[in-house]
């Protein structure tokens, strides 16, 4: 199966921690940024910052990271060849000072900085490290879960100790994004790969701004500033990452000064944060989107009119106002409104009459009395709330749904096997266009294409292999329009990512944070 290996995979919401940690990262990036010595004439910065994840780290080996909490720590300890400048979508140099692409788009050559040191006295970062790392990441047998991302790489070699050359099978606009300092792009020392690779699971050793100092399991990770960091010693000398499972407790702790920053997802707690005088807020425009997907292979959800009816019959404004306290937006497409190329406009305004008309034309004028359908959701409050409201709304159309709460492993299993009628899920999309492929491409059925939709392969293929960004956007829009018409999935709501932080961290300027910006930058 040919996968577009290029993009960092979008993050489908899964377990407890998945959601939260991803986004506080953004805040951490900002914190780290200002800590990183962006300027000398700064007001006194706290030298020790306590941030909070809602889950402990489990495995921080870059080739196996699948959870935000793990990434949040790894991203501070490691560097990549290139990274994304926070607050932008621009790719900028990291370990690689500059790079060239051959005219046929098949060969990428990176020139490494000289004198970048590994932590722990392991010597200098050289091309040998980079080659060994990416070979491991691309291998199917090393335990890497990202080998598909690097499937297009034919060969990696190091013509000299500071040059790394990648040769691809076919030109790809997204190769650079694939190796950006995001999960598999985080580079580990060859010396450790040779002697004790298993230690990387719990003891990261990198070349980044922070050193992994200690880990009290279940409670806290302590990161200390790396004095040898090539970008200069970060001004925040210690970051404590504490585990606090629920948002409410975390906010209370924040208000009491026990932690300094936390990403909040529960709308009710977000509202409290807004109302609290002793807490500052940072809102990210990159939303977390809630979806309802239908199983398009099961009757009556195989009838597009039924799906459209349910879309019209869902009071999304009501959900936004009551459940999310107005903190968010809704749109009619899978690509969030803040991303270039997102289809504007809302067609499916809440209209129960229209919904009933559609049902009637599908031969179900009174709905489906006597039948009960399953609406599967994870046992996370925000998602079960959305499911509950949907259930209520659709009851009025004569369709009775049973909210089926399951936990993550069961959810994913049933979703991928098509063992549901409808489901609610939430995701933070790092790369929206890749998300379209992941969720609606026919080859993703059995993986992340829960709705089993397969009618958009043509525009999606053209989009993936487009050689120019404008063309890419054009095809993306074609695909979006089709998805809007065919309604395999309803985009319910784009909720606000919110970072709450303590006033003592002020000086954090409000920035447009997008999802790729947790790779923090250092001024040069």
């Amino acid at each position, binding site marked *: 199966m040919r996968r577009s290996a290029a993009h960092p995979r979008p993050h489908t919401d899964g377990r407890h921690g998945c959601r939260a940690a991803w986004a506080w990262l953004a805040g951490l990036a900002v914190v780290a940024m200002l800590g990183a010595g962006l300027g000398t004439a700064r007001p006194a910065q706290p030298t020790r910052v306590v941030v909070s994840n809602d889950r402990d780290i489990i495995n921080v080996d870059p080739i196996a990271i699948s959870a935000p909490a793990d990434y949040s720590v790894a991203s501070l300890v490691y560097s990549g060849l290139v990274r994304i400048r926070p607050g932008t979508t621009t790719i900028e140099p990291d370990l690689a000072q500059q790079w060239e692409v051959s005219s046929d788009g098949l060969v990428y050559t990176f020139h490494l900085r000289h004198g970048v040191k590994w932590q722990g006295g392991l010597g200098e970062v050289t091309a040998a490290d980079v080659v060994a790392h990416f070979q491991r990441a691309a291998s199917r047998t090393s335990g890497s879960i990202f080998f598909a991302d690097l499937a297009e790489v034919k060969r990696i070699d190091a013509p000299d100790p500071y040059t790394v050359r990648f040769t691809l099978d076919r030109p790809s606009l997204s190769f650079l994004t694939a190796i950006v300092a995001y999960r598999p792009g985080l580079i580990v020392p060859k010396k450790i790969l040779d002697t004790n690779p298993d230690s990387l699971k719990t003891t990261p050793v990198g070349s980044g701004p922070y050193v992994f100092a200690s880990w009290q399991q279940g409670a806290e990770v302590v990161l200390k500033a790396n004095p040898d960091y090539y970008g200069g010693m970060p001004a925040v000398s210690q970051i404590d990452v504490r585990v606090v499972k*629920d*948002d*409410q407790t975390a906010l*209370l702790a924040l208000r009491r000064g026990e932690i300094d920053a936390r990403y909040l997802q*529960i709308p*009710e*707690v977000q509202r*409290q944060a807004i109302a609290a005088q002793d807490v500052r807020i940072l809102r990210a425009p990159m939303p977390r989107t809630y979806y309802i997907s239908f199983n398009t292979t099961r009757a009556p959800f195989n009838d597009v009119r039924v799906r459209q009816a349910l879309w019209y019959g869902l009071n999304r404004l*009501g959900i936004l*106002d*009551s*459940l999310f306290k107005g903190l968010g937006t809704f749109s009619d497409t899978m690509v969030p409104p803040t991303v270039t190329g997102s289809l504007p406009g809302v067609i499916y305004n809440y209209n129960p009459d229209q919904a009933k008309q559609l049902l009637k034309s599908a031969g179900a004028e009174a709905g489906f009395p006597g039948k009960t359908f399953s609406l599967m959701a994870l*046992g996370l*409050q925000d998602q*079960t*709330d959305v499911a*509950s*409201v949907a259930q*209520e709304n659709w009851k009025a159309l004569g369709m009775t749904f049973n*909210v*089926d*709460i*399951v*936990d993550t492993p*069961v959810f994913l299993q049933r979703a991928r096997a098509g063992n549901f009628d409808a489901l609610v899920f939430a995701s933070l999309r790092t790369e929206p266009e890749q998300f379209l492929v992941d969720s609606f491409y026919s080859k993703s059925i059995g993986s992340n294409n829960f709705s089993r939709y397969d009618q958009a392969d043509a525009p999606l293929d053209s989009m993936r292999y487009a050689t120019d960004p404008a063309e890419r956007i054009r095809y993306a829009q074609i695909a979006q329009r089709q998805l809007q018409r065919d309604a395999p999935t309803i985009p319910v709501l784009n909720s606000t990512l919110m970072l709450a932080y303590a006033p003592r961290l002020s000086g954090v300027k409000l920035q447009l944070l997008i999802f790729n910006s947790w790779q923090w930058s250092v001024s040069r």
Partner: protein
Amino acid sequence: MRSDAAGPNRRAASSPLRLTARALLRSRGALFGLVVTFGIVLAALLAPALAPYDPVQQHLLDQNQPPTLAHWLGTDRLGRDLLSRTVWGARLSLVTGLGAVLVGAVQGALLGLAAGYYRGWVDGVIGRVVDTMLAFPLYLSAIFVIATLGPSQIGVVLAVGLAVTPVFARLTRGQVLEEREKEYVLAARVVGNSNRRVIAVHILPNVLAPLVVLASLTVGDAILVEAGLSFLGLGPPPPTPSWGLMVNDGMVVLTTAPWVSLGPGLAIALLVLGSNLLGDGLRDAFDPRLRGDA
């Protein structure tokens, strides 16, 4: 202080049942427990009539309301009426508690009867199994079984039922060991009754009393475990009006709308209190010494 002074031609004692009932009613604690428990049972039985609203009906315009005329106990996060949810929740808690205890008692009694009556290797095997299960704290056994069955109400009933089985088994066995040496049992066997008949007709009725006491004492524990499991996310799923789940739901608005958590929390405490007092009272009532007739 026997109040039924017997004349020579009167039967020597009132029936044990009447004695028990009287002893029970004398204790203030037990009386209170009786009233509270039956009150809750009544509320649960009459839930459809008592609840002014559908417990899962959302009123999204009225979220997190404090007690008002429209909603006597206020509303929760999704605008659901708390009075209705509490009343329906009583049903759930009672069914879970009683169901679990019933499951445990029946299983335990069967095991205990077999072990105590037949002795020998049956006793040995059952004894080992029961000991293993007894080693496990109630909560952990329940979590363990829930993990297998998946979070659900029936899962909780089975989990807690399984977890309390060994206690009943051990008690029953002890009682059976005592009873089987008594004359009426030996007589029944001599006459030729089959073992099963002896157990069912002769022994069982006489070991019922302590079982009932243990059952009433265990209901409280069962309800607490159900609440705990729901709180941890391992119990019946939303929007079920399970009291434990309601407390968890209300955690998010703890500082702004504490009654959402407090109400069901108090309800749980009340039910457990009632059943515990009742159980204590029953135990004291059955105890010949305390009842004053030994």
